[in-house]
C-alpha cells in the first residue's frame, strides 16, 4: 500500500467504530487453500482475536482476485477493504486497537525485525516447498489451487501461479536452493525465534503482539498441515518452547473463546496439536 493510500485509509477508519459484520475472506478451506495462505489467514485471525475484534470468516474460491493486493487474506470492514497482516495492523491501530503500544522504540524495532524474519524465511520456505518442489506441486499445490475451475482453465491458472512464484524465487536467489537447504533455513529461523522466546509466555513477555500472531499462524499451520513429507513439521517440533507457545495461544484465543461462545460460531476447525 502506498503511503498516501495508507494515510487515507487510517483517516477514514478512525472515524468509525469496529462493525459487527466485519468479514475476513480466504480461499475455500477444504478444497483449495494452500499452506502459505492458510498460515497468513490464521495469523490475521489470531491478531484480530488478540485485539478482541470479532470477525466472520468467509471462504470464497475467488478470494485471491477479490483482494485489492492480490494476496489473501483480506478483511472487509464497513466499506473498507484491507489485505495482509501489515496493513491490517495499521488499520486496526487507526481504529484504536493496537497490541504493540506498550513497547518502547527498541522493542518495536526488534518486533519488526522478527516479523520480517518470519516473512522472509518461513513464508518464503512455504512458498518454495509448495511450488518449487515438483512432487509437492504436482501432488498437492496445483490440484488444490485450481480445484474450483473447470478444464482447461484449471491447468492454465495453476501453471501461471507456479511460474509467478518461481520467477519470484529467482529474483530473491532461492531458485538455486534444494529442499534440504530450505529445511535448514526453516530450522535456523525457528532457532532464532526459540532463543528470542526463551521461557516467556509471549515474545515480549506478558503481552501478546502482532509478532506472536504471525509466528503462531505459521507454526501452527505447519504443524497441523499434511504435506508430502513430515520433514517441515519435524523441524518445528524440535523446539519445545515453540510447541508450548503454539499450545498456549491455541488454548487462550481459540479453545477458550469457543467454550465461552464469545465469537458465535467459530470456523476454526484445525486439528489440535500433537
Amino acid at each position, binding site marked *: 500500500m502506498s503511503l498516501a493510500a495508507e494515510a487515507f485509509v487510517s483517516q477514514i477508519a478512525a472515524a468509525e467504530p469496529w462493525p459487527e459484520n466485519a468479514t475476513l475472506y480466504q480461499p475455500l478451506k477444504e478444497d483449495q487453500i494452500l499452506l502459505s495462505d492458510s498460515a497468513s489467514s490464521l495469523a490475521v485471525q489470531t491478531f484480530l482475536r488478540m485485539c478482541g475484534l470479532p470477525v466472520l470468516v468467509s471462504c470464497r474460491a*475467488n478470494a485471491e*482476485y*477479490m483482494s485489492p493486493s492480490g494476496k489473501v487474506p483480506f478483511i472487509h470492514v464497513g466499506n473498507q*477493504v484491507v489485505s495482509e497482516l501489515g496493513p491490517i495492523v495499521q488499520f486496526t491501530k487507526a481504529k484504536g486497537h493496537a497490541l504493540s503500544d506498550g513497547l518502547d522504540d527498541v522493542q518495536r524495532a526488534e518486533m519488526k525485525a522478527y516479523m520480517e524474519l518470519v516473512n522472509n524465511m518461513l513464508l518464503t520456505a512455504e512458498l518454495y516447498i509448495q511450488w518449487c518442489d515438483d512432487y509437492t506441486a504436482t501432488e498437492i499445490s496445483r490440484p488444490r489451487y485450481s480445484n474450483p475451475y*473447470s478444464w482447461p482453465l484449471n491447468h492454465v491458472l495453476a501453471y501461471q501461479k507456479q511460474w509467478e512464484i518461481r520467477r519470484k524465487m529467482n529474483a530473491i536467489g532461492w531458485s538455486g536452493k534444494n529442499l534440504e537447504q530450505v529445511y535448514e533455513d526453516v530450522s535456523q529461523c525457528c532457532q532464532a525465534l526459540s532463543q528470542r522466546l526463551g521461557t516467556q509466555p509471549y515474545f515480549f513477555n506478558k503481552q501478546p503482539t502482532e509478532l506472536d500472531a504471525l509466528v503462531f499462524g505459521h507454526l501452527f499451520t505447519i504443524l497441523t498441515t499434511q504435506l508430502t513429507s513430515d520433514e517441515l513439521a519435524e523441524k518445528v517440533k524440535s523446539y519445545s518452547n515453540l510447541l508450548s507457545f503454539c499450545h498456549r495461544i491455541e488454548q487462550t484465543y481459540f479453545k477458550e473463546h469457543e467454550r465461552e461462545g464469545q465469537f458465535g460460531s467459530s470456523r476454526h476447525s484445525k486439528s489440535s496439536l500433537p
Partner: protein
Amino acid sequence: MGTVHARSLDPLPMQGPELGVQADDMDLGEPEHEEKQEVLENKDVVVQHVHIDGLGRTKEDILTYEIADVFRANNLIDVMKKSHEARQKLLRLGIFRHVEVVIDTAEGTDALPNGLDVTFEVKELRRMTGSYNTMVGNNEGSMVLGLKLPNVFGRAEKLTFQFSYGTKETSYGLSLFKPQPGHFERNFSINLYKVTGQFPWSSLRETDRGVSTEFSFPIWRTNHTLKWEGVWRELGCLARTASFTVREESGHSLKSSLSHAMVIDTRNSTILPRKGALLKINQELAGYTGGDVRFLKEDFEIQLNKTLFWDSVLSTSLWGGMLLPLGERPSCIADRFYLGGPTSVRGFSMYSIGPQSEGDYLGGEAYWAGGVHLYTPLPFRPGRGGFGDLFRTHFFLNAGNLCNLNYGEGPRAHLSKLAECIRWSYGAGIVLRLGNIARLELNYCIPMGVQSGDRICDGVQFGAGIRFL
C-alpha cells in the same frame, strides 16, 4: 460488329467507407441505351470464351462459379448485364484490386459469326497488406498494427491479424475467413483473440481470451450464423473504491457457449435508412459444452422505417432481451444487459439505468427499449445533393426498462415488473452519417421517469456508435 468496351460500366467500389452519396442511396438504373445499341439488342449472340487475365495465385476453380452466368447470355445487352454482375461478384470476393471487362468478337478457328469473347482483366491484391495506427484516448495511448493476407490459399480465404499495444492494455485478434466457392454468403471463420475492456460505469475491467468458430449461411431471405465460443474471462476492479458487489465478481471464469443469430434486413441502408425493416434474433446457450458459466440468453431487435412527406422518415425500433441463469449460480456481471446512453435510451448516462451498488451499475437480467424517430433533412437544406445529405435532424422519443427477474414469479409478474418505473426521454438533435458504418449524434434530451440511482444527462448529449435505438 466492332469492339464494345464495357470499362466504364460502373466505377463504383463495392462498399467503401468514404463519405459521399452511397450506392444504396441511388436506385441503380439500367445502363442507358443509345439508338445505336438498340440495333444490337435483339441480335442473338453466343458467348464462346471467357478469359480472366492477370491471375497469379488465385485458383481458377473458384472463379468459374462467379462467371458461369456470362455463358447463359444470349444477346449483347444481356452479355453486358451478366458481365457487370460477374464483375460485382468478383469484386465482392475481396481479392482483386480492380476488375475490368472487355467484350470482343470471338476469334480463332472455331469462332462463330455471332460469337463473343468476354475478358475480365483483373489485378490481384498484394499478398500481404499492413497498416499502422496510433490512437490516443481515455488517458491511454496505443499503437495498432494490422496485417491482412487476402486470398491466402488462393480461394478467397482471408487471414487478418491485429495487434494493439497500449500503455495500459495489450490486445490482439487473429481471424481466418473462408467462403464456400460459389456461395460467398456461406462462409466459415475462426477467430482467436484477447481483448481488454474497461467499464467505468461498473468500475469493472474485463480481459477476455477466447476462440470462436462461426458458420454463416443464408436461408431464403434470412441470414443465419451459428457460433461456438470459448472464452476465458478475467474480471477485476478498476479502482480500489469499486463497490464490494463488483469486487465479489472478480476472478476467472470460463464460458463455453453455442449461439445462433438470425437477421432479416430489407433496409436500403444500415445507417439512416429510408425504407425497409430489420429483424435480429440472437440466442446463446452457455454451459452445455463445458466451462463454469451456465445461462440461456435471448435478445431481439426490430426496426421499421417508412418515408413520409418532404423526405422525412419515420423510424421505430424495439429491443428486448432476457438472461436466464441455469443452475444455482447467479448470473455474472459480464453477461447481464446494460441500458442507457446516447445510443440507446437518450438522456441517461452510458449504461447507467437499473440496479446499482454504491454507484456501480450491475446490469439486469431483462430489458426492453423502444424508440420512435422522425428524421428530416436539415432546415433550408444547405449543401443539398452533397455534403448536406450526410446530415439529418431528428426528433425522438425513447423509453426502456432494465431489471432483474425473480424466476419463481412467472411470466405475468415479469411483465408487470418490466412495465413498472419505465424510463423515457424525448428531444431533438442532429445526426451525421459517417460512411455506411457509424453515426454521430448531437442531441438535446429531456429525461423523464428517472428512478433513484439512475445517472442522467439532462440537456446536450453527444453520441457516437454503430448500433442505435
